[in-house]
């Protein structure tokens, strides 16, 4: 360790005071953000905290003479992988906030104990080691003609088998996503021509009436009113109607005062059901 060639004692190898200051400031930030990932109630906050951790680590990579990894970390990890997480979060429902209530009694206490039993010996063991001045990568960078050619040589020459095996890994990932997400067609796709023919020959060639649009409601689950004040059964998507039959003849409570109730409406139940429905929907869409 002590026989370091002259050219490796470049400034970047040694740990200076500026680096120490950066380490403590940024290190604190990273640890706090990591805690944020774990303890945020909302998944999106966790993801954003994760982005902070990743960018913080990218800076550490830069300080530790790994400029290539710094860029990869930001572009690939933060930019692609984390965004994929966010996409899925959006699909699954952003506000599906996690209950932090324990389901198993003493689970959290047990976890804390285990974590301490893991962390304390590990950190005390690691902190007892003094590595001294790092050797630094300058010698190798000079020999290889740059840090990226050096990395490339190692990846493509020395670890060629691992490199090829990651090919298998990526194919597996694509295949897996296809298997789990892509649904093959069982029937032939209907052509534009068939659809228009069906429509003309069917009993309703014109477009169906749209859902109701009122001063305070214009959701797709609001029925439209016909000129006589009754509800148009065709104006709501059958799927929504099947979920809540009341919708077929319910208009919002505040509207039914002014326009008069539809013939067979029960305003109270209809209104409360509507509210329930909207809350359900809200949890996926808000």
């Amino acid at each position, binding site marked *: *360790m002590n*026989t*370091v*060639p002259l050219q490796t004692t470049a400034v970047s190898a040694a740990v200076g005071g500026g680096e120490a200051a950066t380490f403590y400031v940024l290190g604190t930030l990273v640890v706090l953000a990591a805690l944020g990932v774990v303890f945020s109630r909302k998944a999106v906050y966790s993801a954003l905290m994760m982005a902070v951790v990743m960018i913080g680590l990218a800076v550490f990579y830069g300080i530790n003479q790994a400029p290539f990894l710094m860029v990869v970390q930001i572009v690939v990890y933060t930019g692609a992988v984390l965004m994929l997480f966010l996409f899925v979060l959006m699909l699954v429902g952003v506000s599906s906030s996690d209950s932090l209530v324990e389901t198993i009694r003493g689970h959290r206490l047990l976890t804390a104990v285990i974590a301490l039993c893991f962390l304390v010996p*590990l950190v005390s*063991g*690691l902190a*007892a*080691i*003094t*590595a*001294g001045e790092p*050797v630094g*990568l300058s*010698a*190798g960078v000079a*020999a*290889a003609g740059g840090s990226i050619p*050096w990395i490339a*040589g*190692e990846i*493509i*020459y*020395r*670890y*060629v*088998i*691992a490199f*090829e*095996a*990651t090919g*298998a*890994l990526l*194919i*597996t*990932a694509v*295949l*897996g996503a*296809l*298997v*789990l*997400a*892509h*649904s*093959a067609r*069982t*029937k032939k796709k209907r052509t534009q021509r068939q659809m228009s023919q069906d429509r003309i020959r069917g009993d309703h060639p014109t477009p169906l009436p749209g859902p109701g649009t009122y001063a305070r409601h214009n959701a797709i689950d609001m029925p439209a009113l016909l000129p006589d004040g009754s509800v148009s059964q065709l104006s709501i998507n059958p799927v929504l109607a099947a979920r809540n039959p009341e919708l077929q003849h319910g208009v919002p409570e505040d509207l039914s005062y002014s326009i008069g109730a539809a013939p067979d409406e029960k305003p109270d139940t209809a209104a409360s059901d509507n509210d329930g429905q909207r809350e359900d929907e809200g949890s996926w869409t808000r």
Partner: protein
Amino acid sequence: MIPLSLSEAQTPTVTTQAPDLDYGLLSPLLVVFAVGVLGVLVEAFVSPQRRRITQLVLALLGIGAAFVLTVVQVGALPAEGAGLTVAFATLVVDRPALFFQGVILVLALVSLLLIAEDRDGEGAFTAQAAAVPGSEEERAHILAGTRHTEVYPLVMFAVLGMQLFTAANDFLTMFIALEVMSLPLYLLCGLARRRRLFSQEAALKYFILGAFSSAFFLFGIAMVYGYAGSVNFADINRAGSEGGLIEGGGPLLLAGIALVGVGLLFKVGTVPFHNWKPDVYQGAPTPVTALMASGTLVAAFGALLRVFYVAFGASVEQWRPMLWVVAILTMVVAAVIAVTQRDIKRLLAYSSVVHAGFILTAVVAASADGLAGAMFYLAAYGFTTVGAFAVVTLVRNPEGGAEAGDLTQWAGLGRTSPLLAASLGLFLLAFAGIPLTSGFIGKFAVFEAAVAAGATPLVVVGVLSSAVTAFFYVRIIVLMFFAEPAENAPRVLRPGALTGTVVGVGVAATLLLGVFPGPVLDNLVPQPEETTAAEGTVPEALFMR
């Protein structure tokens, strides 16, 4: 090639030359990889009606060819030294690697037959994984007879990962191999045709716990890299005997051994890292369970043996206590839990945990005998367990056609279908380690090696645990042959040619390895005079370094 012995601190390793790859040595891996890739192309270009048969023929031919090539390499190994290295020693071709690869390929071939079994257009896999269970869409797909033929390339990639896992000679290649092996298995677990919710949950559980454990594995690698300045097993071994790059870096090595051990022991499935096994084995499609219970176990132990015998071969005193504790815990806890199981697949899962404990006693020995014992045990156990899972696929619920897992339903099966019950009985006797079965020889070999290495207390625990587990295996046999058939007696399917072959291979291997173990057992490792080692180290001649 650049010699690796130079200390990196003085001249950093800069690779500027492409390795001189010996494609002959890589051929078994290349064939399996090529067949996997071809399988993906088949998905794209072959009509749906012909896909299954094309995929099956391709996969069987590929694995068969890879097996032949592996056997050819055994003959081509140099007389001097333990084997050869490929591509800057990132991969080795030596006796243990070839043996494990050969066993994995045969087990994969047998499991493939189970995977391909297709009764009246109904395989073990879901018609359309993307369709919600019980939905109209799913029904339409079942009626249309859609099939997921993508499982064949996935199986090929998993097999490729297993092969690499046993042959990797540095931690980076091993980590990639671990992922190549695991990712397809995570996916395959979620594709069961029946009880799809269970299956999807099994996939999620396996995935999360698998990713969790590989993170531990990786952190362990980081610690070892910090200690030795290299991830190559030979370099780590040298650092272990001569001291690492960092002064007072002992804690790094210790933490590394422990964390790498956690990652590997999780894949092997020993207590306290066994929690995934019963759930995943139960939820996954049974043919995939058969592949995991046999192939993955063999591959994981192959890697574990190489890591502990080569990379940590100079630090036996550091890892031995840890493996002692894990082995004892495994043999005791899993045996006790196994007795209370009521579902055949969960029972087989716990039995697999107990067996992992038995094999660990051989690993603890850190000797040539230990290695040979573990190798024999793995081969024997692999064939028996594939056979047992093949039997499980045949016993179905009277209505619905899902597998009849509940053990009470298996009562009286010996009277209604004696042949099937007899073969399962044989497998269970082999699990219990009754003489004249392969299980007995395997147990004898591992316990003998452990006693020779001074681990007698471990062997006592092992024998007691065997006795407890033998009790519940025998209980099932008694239940099958001497109890009245249950009310909701299961429907036993006639084994088709494919499943029949699997059960036949299982029975044949269990009996042959039990009656004539000599030819296999005597040729596993080099002769004893070459395999002496100093106290606290593993003999060098066992593995290529």
